[in-house]
C-alpha cells in the first residue's frame, strides 16, 4: 500500500462488488482515487452462498481497483449486511468503590457490562456503538475521562449476527491474501457519508436500498439509536416485474431502470410500453399501469415494514427532525421519495455521498455510498483509535469482531 493514509473499502453486494480506494486529506475529508467494480455472483440477499464464485468476483474487483488507481491493495475494510444481523440498545453500569477520576479501563468495564446479554448461541457481537455516558446522574456526558465520579453508566447500540455467516465474508477476503482492518455494518458505513453531523444531531433516518437488501439506520442526538436489515431490495422489484409481466429477468431489470416508477399509478395516464424483440425474446407490449402497480406495491411495502420496525423500537418519526435520507442503487427509481414521504410522514431526500472529493462520477452515484462510507469510517476510526498491533486486532476480531472500533464508530 502506498501509505497509511490510503483506505480501501470492499462491499460484497448482491448485484455488484465494489472496491473503493480513497486517500485521507489533511482537512479530515477523503479523496476518492478510484473504484473497482464487478457484477456479483454467488451472493444472495447480501450473504455469500457460493464461496468460490464470490471470491473470484472479489478478486476481479480488487484487480480492477488496482489497475484504475495504481495502488497495491493490502488491507481492506469490509461492509457486511444480511437478514441475520440484529440490534438492540442496552445500558452498562459500573459503580466504583470510591469517588475518583474515571480511567479508560472503567469505560471498557462499562462496555463489557453492557454486552453481558444472552445472545443466541450461534451469534457474535459485530458492533457496540456508544450512544451516551451518564456519570452520577449527570446525563449525556460527552467525555467522562478524568472527570470524578462513582457511578458510570453508558448506553450502547449493539449489533450482532450469526458468527458463521460473518466468518464467510472474512474467509472470502482472507483467501485472497488480503488483511482485514475491520468488518462494518453496511448502513453504519453508508451513514458516514450520506448524513452530515447536523442530521445526526437533530435526528435522521438513512435508508440504503440495494439489490438484495435494504439497510437502515436511525441517528438521534448524534448517536445510532436503531438499525435494521431487510432482506428485500431492488432484485425483488425486478422479480415482481418478471413474474407479473412474464418477462425474462434481464428484460424486467431493463424495464425497471428505463421505465419504472414507484408512484401510485391510479392517477396516472397509463399507456402501453412496447418492448422490442431481441435474440431470444420476441418482444411484447406492456401496460404501463401494470408495471407501476407492481413497483409501487413493493416499494410501499418496504417502507411500511421499516416504519413499523422503527415505531416498535420506540423511536418516533417526530424525533427525526432532519427527515429521511435515501441512498443505494435502487434510490434512482422514479417516484421513490414521494412514496417514502407518504409512508414516513416526514421530509424525504434522495441523496448520495457528500463531503468527499475526487472522481465526481463515483461519489455522485448512490450505488457507491456504502463503499465510500467504509473509507470515511476508516478515516474516523484510524484518526481516533490508539495504535494497535495487527495481532491485537486479530485477537479482538475473534473475540468479538470489531468491539473497540465499533464502540467508537459514531
Amino acid at each position, binding site marked *: 500500500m502506498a501509505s497509511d493514509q490510503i483506505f480501501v473499502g470492499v462491499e460484497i453486494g448482491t448485484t455488484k462488488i465494489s472496491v473503493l480506494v480513497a486517500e485521507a486529506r489533511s482537512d479530515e475529508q477523503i479523496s476518492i482515487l478510484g473504484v473497482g467494480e464487478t457484477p456479483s455472483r454467488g451472493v444472495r440477499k447480501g450473504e455469500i452462498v457460493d464461496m468460490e464464485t464470490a471470491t473470484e468476483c472479489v478478486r476481479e474487483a480488487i484487480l480492477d481497483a488496482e489497475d484504475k488507481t495504481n495502488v497495491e491493495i493490502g488491507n481492506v475494510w469490509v461492509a457486511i449486511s444480511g437478514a441475520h444481523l440484529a440490534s438492540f440498545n442496552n445500558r452498562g453500569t459500573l459503580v466504583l468503590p470510591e469517588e475518583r477520576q474515571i480511567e479508560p479501563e472503567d469505560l471498557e468495564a462499562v462496555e463489557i457490562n453492557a454486552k453481558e446479554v444472552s445472545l443466541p448461541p450461534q451469534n457474535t457481537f459485530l458492533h457496540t456503538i456508544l450512544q451516551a455516558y451518564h456519570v452520577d446522574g449527570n446525563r449525556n456526558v460527552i467525555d467522562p475521562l478524568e472527570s470524578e465520579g462513582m457511578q458510570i453508566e453508558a448506553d450502547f447500540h449493539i449489533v450482532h449476527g450469526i458468527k458463521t455467516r460473518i466468518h464467510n465474508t472474512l474467509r472470502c477476503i482472507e483467501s485472497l491474501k488480503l488483511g482485514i482492518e475491520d468488518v462494518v455494518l453496511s448502513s453504519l458505513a453508508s451513514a458516514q457519508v450520506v448524513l452530515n453531523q447536523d442530521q445526526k444531531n437533530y435526528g435522521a433516518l438513512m435508508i440504503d436500498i440495494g439489490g438484495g437488501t435494504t439497510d437502515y439506520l436511525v441517528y438521534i442526538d448524534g448517536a445510532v439509536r436503531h438499525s435494521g436489515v431487510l432482506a428485500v431490495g431492488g432484485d425483488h422489484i425486478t422479480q415482481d416485474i418478471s413474474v407479473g*409481466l412474464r418477462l425474462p429477468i434481464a428484460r424486467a431489470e431493463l424495464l425497471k431502470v428505463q421505465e419504472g416508477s414507484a408512484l401510485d399509478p391510479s392517477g396516472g395516464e397509463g399507456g402501453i410500453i412496447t418492448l422490442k424483440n431481441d435474440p431470444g425474446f420476441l418482444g411484447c407490449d406492456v401496460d404501463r399501469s401494470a408495471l407501476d402497480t407492481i413497483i409501487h406495491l*413493493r416499494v410501499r411495502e418496504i417502507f411500511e415494514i421499516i416504519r413499523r420496525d422503527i415505531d416498535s423500537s420506540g423511536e418516533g418519526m417526530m424525533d427525526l427532525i432532519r427527515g429521511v435520507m435515501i441512498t443505494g442503487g435502487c434510490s434512482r427509481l422514479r417516484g421513490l421519495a414521494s412514496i417514502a414521504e407518504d409512508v414516513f410522514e416526514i421530509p424525504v431526500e434522495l441523496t448520495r455521498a457528500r463531503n468527499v472529493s475526487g472522481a465526481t462520477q463515483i461519489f455522485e452515484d448512490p450505488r457507491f455510498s456504502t463503499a465510500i462510507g467504509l473509507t470515511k469510517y476508516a478515516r474516523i476510526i484510524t484518526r481516533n483509535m490508539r495504535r494497535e498491533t495487527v495481532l491485537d486486532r486479530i485477537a479482538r476480531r475473534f473475540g468479538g469482531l470489531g468491539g473497540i472500533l465499533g464502540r467508537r464508530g459514531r
Partner: protein
Amino acid sequence: MNPSIVVAGVGNSGVALLDILALGRPDLKDLLAVNNDEESLRASVAHVRIGMPEGDPSDGFLAIDGAFGEALEGAGTLILCGGLGGVTGSFLMPALAAHAKASGRVVLACAGIPFSFEGKERRTRALAALGKLRSLSDAVAVIDNDRFAAGSAVTSSVGEAFRLADGFLVSSVLSLRSMIGTSGPVRISRNDIQAVLGPSGGGTYCSFGSAVGDNRLHEALEKSLAGPLLLKGGKASSLREAERVLLLLEGGNDISFAEVQTVVAEIERIVPAGCQIRTGVAAQGPAGSPLSLSLFVSVTSPVGNDHPEKTGAEASSGNSGRRETLSPEPKASAEESAVSSKPVSLGAKGTRSSQAKPVPKPSTSKATQGTFDLVTNQRGRFDKSEPTIIGGEDLDVPTFLRKGVKLPVPPRR
C-alpha cells in the same frame, strides 16, 4: 377414565416417556402405564397404572387382559409408546396393539429401536417385535437410535444420546396425538397417517422443530431439516428419497397461509418428483404460540436395512409381500372411509390372513392427452434462497400476488 385418545407407556422405557410427557404437557389426562416393574410403576405419574406379574410375559399378559380392557373403555384411539428390545416391551407392545385392534380401536405406536452398542440380541429382538407391531397397528413411528450416531449425537455423552432419543419419542407421540385429535383447520386423516406410517410404508423417519418470533417458520424448518434421524451418514437427508411425507404445522391461531405455503414449497424442493406430501395444520393455540413442525418421512428401504441382520420375524411377517398387496394410495372418499373403518382381520399368528397373493388387475388405462403444469413459481429466482418472512408473509412472493391485486392485461399485438 373416558378419553378419546389413550397414550400408553409400555415397559420401563415407555413409563419413563410418560413421565416426560406429563411434565411437559400437564394438560394430558389420558396416560396409562403398563409394566412388570413395581418400582417403576410406583414412581410413575401416569393416571392409570397396570402392573403385570413378573415372569413369563405371555402369562403376565393374561393376568392384565381385563384391566387393560377397562382402561381403554370409551377410547377410540390407543397410542403405544416405548422401547423395543427388552423382553417386556418387545412382547407387550405387539400384544397390547392386538388387543386394542381386536376391539376395533385405532392403534398407533411410537417405538424406539436400541443402539447397536446395547447388543446384537437386543436389536434383533427389537426388529422382530417391530415387524409384529407394524402388522398389528395402523401406524408405527420408529425411532432408530442408531441414526443418531450419524449426526451430532455422536460426540454427545451417552446420557445425552438417550435423552435425545427419548425426546424424539415424546415428540412423535405428541405429533400423532395432534394429528388424530386436531380439529384443523387442515386435518390429517387416519388414511394419511397410515399411508406414511402404516404397514405398507417402507422405512419411516421423523424430525421435529419448534420456534417462536418473527422468523419462527424458518427456524422451525431449519431445525427439523437438520434432525439427526433424517440425515443419512450425517449428510444427505432421507427426504431426498422420500416416497411420502406427513407434515404437521402446529401453533397459534396466527399461523398464516404464507407460512403453510412456504413450508410445503421448501419440502417440495427437497423431495423427489412424485413424492406425496400430506399436510396438516393445527392452529388452536393463542396467537404468538410456538410454531412446531413435525415431519414423518416414508422411504422405500425399511428401518434396520442399514444393518445386515434381517430378522426371521420380519421375513415371516412378509413385509415385502405386504407392500405389493396393499394399495400404496388411499382410495377416494367413500371407498376410503369404508376401508378405514373396517377392522383388519387377523390370522391366528397375528399376520394378515387375506391379501396373501396379489391378483394382477386387467389394464384399464386409456390413452389420454398429457397436460403441462402451468402454475407459476411465485418465488421465482428466490426459490432456492432462504425465505424472508415478516409478519407471517413470505416477502419473496411478489407483493401484488400476496395482496391479490389484479394487473391490467395489455392488448395483444
